């Protein structure tokens, strides 16, 4: 094999922009991130080293990726309207994730709330126009966040099918032409003072299971009554800040609601596949990087005075690792394509059970493989496995949370059972 680009991806799925986007981002990653990423763990609180790299990726002073979803007439690149939006996102997630999955998360979560108003067929032009300048005219990185998780639990909120939103405690009340929001969220990527814009999944009627009462409301971070706590210290993912956010009588215009009763619940179901597809891309990126590092290691370190890779037993382990990477990549692109088929006659809407459940299932599978092969790769490195100099341990720490977020592994398992076996009570 020539290099890590040879890992399989269904070529017929690949967007025409793929090659170009990859080369630009790879350049950025090799120059701005790879040489510094070992220092990121100590920079978790301040982002002194991390922030300039984000600026070069997302802001107009650099590649300008933060505007990519916006329509060209608003200053963006129109990816939200593209038939390949998911596949391009997968490539972006992979390339940035190869360098640092936390950066990939922080960057792509900026798209996450925006997908609700910028992706065909649900473009909300008024909101798109409202927020376009924030992202399209900025020299520096500007982030957004999707604030779903609450102190009592994140899984239940993502499990709308079962709970119907009744566990949500963040409440929006319509007063005249304003929403007044009160509540407490935890953990959103890009909280801790980073995001300029939140989308806040909430309820207009506490305890209700009627999905008409579920709302997604945009809240600019500087709005009066929004307070973000300091970032949490975590096992990994230093380039992503997470914190508490309190909403106390926060007032925003009534038209900041993404789409309105019922449609917001559908849109919420639609953002889940985006998160899942991107999660798979992050892990594939990390796995591609694992392969690069492992290749060097097993070629230069020896067992019985032969390169590790020439020992039959060790070869079987590293062969399996590479094989798994290949399979995971194919699956990730299949998931992305499932998203991109949403508007095609033979596809399913991304809010459908078919897409939600199959994607959760794929993400669960890829996460498990990733957790497993990173652990194995550390073992192949033996006394060097835990050493930061080799970067594999960093990915190992980072990717574990990808297995756990978005409602957790068990929710994925339940959704798969529900779909494949028509379970009624789970």
């Amino acid at each position, binding site marked *: 094999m020539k290099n890590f680009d040879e890992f399989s991806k269904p070529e017929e799925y690949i967007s025409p922009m793929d090659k170009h986007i990859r080369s630009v981002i790879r350049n950025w990653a090799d120059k701005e991130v790879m040489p510094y990423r070992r220092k990121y763990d100590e920079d978790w609180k301040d982002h002194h080293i991390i922030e300039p790299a984000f600026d070069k990726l997302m802001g107009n002073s650099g590649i300008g990726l933060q505007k990519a979803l916006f329509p060209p007439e608003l200053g963006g690149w129109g990816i939200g309207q593209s038939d390949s939006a998911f596949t391009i996102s997968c490539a972006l997630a992979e390339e940035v994730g190869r360098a640092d999955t936390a950066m990939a998360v922080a960057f792509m979560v900026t798209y996450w709330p925006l997908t609700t108003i910028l992706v065909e067929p649900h473009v909300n032009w008024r909101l798109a126009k409202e927020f376009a300048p924030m992202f399209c005219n900025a020299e520096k990185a500007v982030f957004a966040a999707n604030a779903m998780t609450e102190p009592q639990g994140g899984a239940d909120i993502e499990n709308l099918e079962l709970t119907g939103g009744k566990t949500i405690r963040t409440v929006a009340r319509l007063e005249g032409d304003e929403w007044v929001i009160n509540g407490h969220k935890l953990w959103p990527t890009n909280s801790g003072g980073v995001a300029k814009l939140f989308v806040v999944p909430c309820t207009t009627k506490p305890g209700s299971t009627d999905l008409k009462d579920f709302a997604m409301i945009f809240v600019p971070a500087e709005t009066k009554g929004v307070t973000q706590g300091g970032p949490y210290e975590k096992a990994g993912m230093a380039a992503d800040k997470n914190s508490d956010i309190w909403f106390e009588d926060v007032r925003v215009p009534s038209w900041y609601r993404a789409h309105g009763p019922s449609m917001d619940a559908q849109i919420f179901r639609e953002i889940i596949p985006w998160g899942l597809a991107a999660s798979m891309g992050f892990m594939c990126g990390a796995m591609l990087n694992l392969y690069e590092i492992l290749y060097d290691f097993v070629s230069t370190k020896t067992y019985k005075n032969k390169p590790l890779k020439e020992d039959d037993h060790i070869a079987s382990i590293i062969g399996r690792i590479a094989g798994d990477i290949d399979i995971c990549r194919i699956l990730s692109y299949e998931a992305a394509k499932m998203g991109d088929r949403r508007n095609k006659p033979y596809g399913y809407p991304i809010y459908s059970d078919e897409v939600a459940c199959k994607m959760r299932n794929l993400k669960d599978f890829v996460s498990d493989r990733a957790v497993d092969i990173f652990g194995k790769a550390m073992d192949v490195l033996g006394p060097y*496995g835990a050493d930061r100099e080799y970067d594999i341990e960093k990915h190992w720490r980072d990717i574990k949370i990808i297995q756990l977020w978005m409602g957790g592994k068990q929710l994925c398992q339940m959704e798969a059972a529900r779909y494949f076996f028509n379970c009624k009570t789970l």
Partner: protein
Amino acid sequence: MNKALDELFVYPKELVDEESKRVIHLVRQWADKEIISKRQEYRENYEKLFIETRKSLNLTIGLQRLTLPEEHGGFGWNNPANAPGIASILTEIGRADAAIGVAAAVKYTILAAITMAPNFDKALCDALAPVYCGEELKTFSLILPGMGNIGQDTPLFLGRSILASVEAESDGYVVNGKDLRPINSGAIADLFCVVCADKADKPCIALVPGDNANVVRGKTLLETGLNASSNADVSFNNVKIPKSYVISRQGVVEELYTWLNLLLGGVSVGTGMNFFEMVGDWSETRTIKGGYMMKENPLCASVLADVADEVFTSRLFLYDLAQTISKPNDWGQSGSQRVYTIAQVIGSKIQQNVMRAINRGLELMGSAGYSKEWHVEKHWRDIKTIQSYLCGVGAEAPVKMDTARFFFDCKDI
């Protein structure tokens, strides 16, 4: 959690005598009082408290002298029959902090080569005990054979490259080795135990005082876990040591592996038990599906069962190994091929089990498990670090080969 840990994770109690139980109890009290009951403070002032708690364990309770013979001021746990007791101590320490556990495990492993019957080396003990097991806290570091580098043809210990050498010179030995990676504490160790090859490429061990000017330490490594142990690569540039500091009896390297597997197994079982306690608390207070207690959900309960199962069986494995070591008349000395192989099989199984227990348990803890505030993520990182070190080369390749060699009489692997 309303049941005592020992009632849940049962083990053959008869393997540990009453006197040992008293010491073990003391260590549990130390763990609860000094670390477990104040995890937040311990985390926030880790570097300082790591040293202070190590001191209180090693000097106040006196565990630094645990495996020294009584005539050297020790507890006299220097007989293989003490293996279950020593493993229990490591479990108690590991429950509090795996990094303190690893430091103790390595120290007892090295001392086992010197003090353990029937190979008690009085002269060496006379020379080392006052300096390294006295009134000051001293740290030992172990350097095992492992991976080689391409282009180097090294002597081998059962497939593993021996990167250090000893050569006799006048009345002592000279030790050489470049950029060697210890198991622990390379940056701060007071005494190194290094597996070396002699002139005939035969493996032996050399004890190298850390204050020798020709011991050169690399920069302190940043690692996944166990960072308080301050590891670093070490080079020995013509380091002269007394003759008695080299031990070359048949099977001495195997002895090191046997004890290390037992004692690191003890540490990991302890860490696994504490993880079990934490995930247990979480599962009793967290609700899912709109208000059901997590542990009452059958799927979550099955994950919890995996956690308990892995820790429970690991503890049984641990005592099985301890018992095997404690009965040399039945199974052979700790350096025999049988005991050495069994130790590796069980040692690796324990690490895998505990790692799986933590990985599974983390699934239930969502973001809390990932946040430092909840303390479980430290256990996850620490155990992975221990496991990677113990793997040695290529994901346990040598362990697999040792196992196949013993059970199937393979000749060429």
